[in-house]
């Protein structure tokens, strides 16, 4: 048991932070949001630096990939890192990236669908891997911080139910880490804002009524982050993965509300950075069956012990 980063993990995080500070961030996100694109350059840079192969590495594994995912989310990266670098490796196949995730029984658009070359379609029997040809996915206008697209949900090669279950668990760990990083950035941005925004002759961040709510949100962000790391290190057991996702997805609701409330009207504008992270929180909250789905998965894994 050791919550401190080891030397390798510190080096990985420092390197990815440097890369992200240069190639991602709210400015870049705003630009890509406007044109509905995918950050192929960031993807290529992450791949060139070896960050997309951490799960398969000799001295690295899913925890390191999860640490990187949290950082990518904090910097509002426009890349499908979670699905590609953390979920896809659990298939046991080499999948063409970027990878996108979809639920067969849902009709909505999926994140990064238009740029994905492989779609993983989860259904009641498991999961199917389906290559996506250019033009098959249709981009759709959405206001939730990610490029969204309609995707075909037919066909694809079915993987074994066991493998599907593993991939589902990894998708939950990835969701928790991504939510944790996104919430952290939205919260940090808000904290900086309430320290400098003055009303009634003082920084609004000096009001206890606001402080307590930010402190509550900080507890949930920290909880999400550590549950994700722990689940990743333990190889995504069904229960721990569902717990991390249930907790983080539920936390997004409060963090969204508090950060927007405390930024006031300017928080709704595109010139203000908050939306780059905050709007994403709602997309993450709904993903892969949403909060209630993760909560039911916790119950199934812990007390019913059939498939989770």
């Amino acid at each position: 048991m050791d919550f401190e980063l080891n030397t390798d993990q510190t080096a990985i995080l420092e390197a990815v932070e440097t890369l992200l500070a240069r190639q991602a961030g709210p400015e870049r996100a705003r630009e890509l949001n406007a044109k509905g694109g995918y950050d192929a350059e960031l993807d290529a840079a992450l791949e060139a630096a070896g960050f997309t192969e951490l799960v398969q590495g000799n001295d690295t594994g899913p925890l390191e990939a999860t640490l990187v995912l949290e950082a990518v989310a904090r910097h509002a990266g426009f890349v499908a890192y979670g699905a590609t670098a953390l979920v896809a490796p659990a298939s046991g196949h080499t999948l063409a990236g970027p990878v996108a995730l979809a639920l067969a029984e849902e009709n909505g658009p999926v994140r990064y669908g238009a740029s994905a070359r492989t779609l993983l379609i989860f259904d009641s029997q498991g999961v199917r891997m389906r290559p996506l040809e250019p033009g098959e996915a249709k981009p759709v206008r959405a206001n939730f911080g990610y490029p969204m697209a309609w995707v075909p949900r037919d066909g694809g090669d079915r993987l074994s139910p066991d493998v599907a279950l593993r991939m589902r668990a990894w998708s939950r760990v990835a969701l928790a880490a991504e939510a944790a990083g996104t919430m952290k950035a939205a919260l940090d941005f808000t904290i900086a804002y309430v320290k400098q925004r003055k009303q009634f002759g003082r920084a609004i961040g000096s009001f206890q009524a606001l402080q307590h709510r930010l402190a509550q949100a900080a507890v949930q962000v920290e909880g999400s982050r550590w549950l994700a790391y722990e689940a990743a290190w333990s190889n995504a057991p069904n229960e721990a993965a569902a717990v991390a996702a249930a907790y983080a997805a539920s936390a997004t609701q409060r963090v969204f509300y508090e950060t927007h409330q405390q930024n006031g009207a300017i928080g709704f504008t595109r010139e203000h950075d908050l939306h780059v992270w905050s709007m994403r929180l709602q997309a993450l909250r709904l993903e892969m069956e949403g909060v209630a789905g993760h909560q039911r998965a916790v119950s199934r894994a812990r007390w019913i012990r059939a498939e989770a």
Partner: protein
Amino acid sequence: MEFGWSEGDRKFRQDLAKFLEEALPEDWEEVSKDGPGSDAQAAFSKEFSGKLAERGWLTQHWPSEYGGSDAPPWRHAILSEAMWACGEPRGPQYMNVNWIGPAIMEYGSEAQKSEHLSRISRGDVLWCQGFSEPNAGSDLVSLTTRAEPRGDDYLVNGQKIWTSYCQNADFCFLLVRTNPQERRHRGISVLLMPMDLAGVEVREIDAVIGDRYFHEVFLTDVVVPKSCRLGPENEGWAITSYALQFERVGAPRYARAALTVDLLAENAAAGGRLADPNLQEKLGHARALCEAARVLHYRVIDQRTHGLPPSADSNVARIAGTMADLAVGELALEIWGSESLVYGSVGDSNFRASMSAGIATGTTEVNLNLIAQRLLGLPRE
């Protein structure tokens, strides 16, 4: 970063579970229904803690010179988890080993160390904590219980309130004002006061949270020898802060809450209700809250293991624990429905156990203040 248990830790957990099976009486549920402060549990705690001491587990995290075995903080955390999960058979003695002992190690005279530490590590002494007063709750530093010097003694007058465990306690870790001229943090001292001194009167407060739960302690012309003072005169606040930094994660309430959620689920399963998706969601949510509290507590234990200074992360853990505890208490009432209305029923006991979560050892609001200022760097109001 890694989250695995060592072989030794795993074995300790197993040994502990086996030990508990033998050491807890058949009617343990009945004995423990009113919490660690009840007469029944206080009495049982002396027998039980003695057995823990015999195995070297009661104060294993203490330095060997004080009767411990220098075990890493993780061992004691595992013990605390197991103890709280089953309703704290150490009774009030968890305070002794968590923070009263360590405070005496740090600030005590040789005589105090030899008198108190050996008794605590044998498991046959009960302490209570004399902090809150009618006009000093969250704002503890405004306390006014007065200790006036009289030769080799102090003459103590005042009143403490919300005191748990004191009806059976042998000693009180008492905060008094030794210098009335100094305001606030200055002028407070700690007395290790025997409870059998003349002028100490304990009255139970009739309360819905449970019988024998808390009390008032009236102190009228109590003569306390100066040799009972812990550390220098007027330095009591620093000593208290030192002691309490251990206490925010000292009582892992999430462990009990998690066990309660398991019970709720088993009960629902037995009644054929676990297929209800709505119930699955509630149970899953409660389980997630308990797990978040656990991992955030572990983080603080880890910081202590690394010798890092105490930080607002302990307040973060405390808030997460409170959230879990309160949610589970409510769920317990809900799941057993109207059966929970019976005093001592599973729903009732768990609900009452959860009620004080946001108040005991520092209110939620005080913890949130500390997070806002120390972790988020927000300016004081």
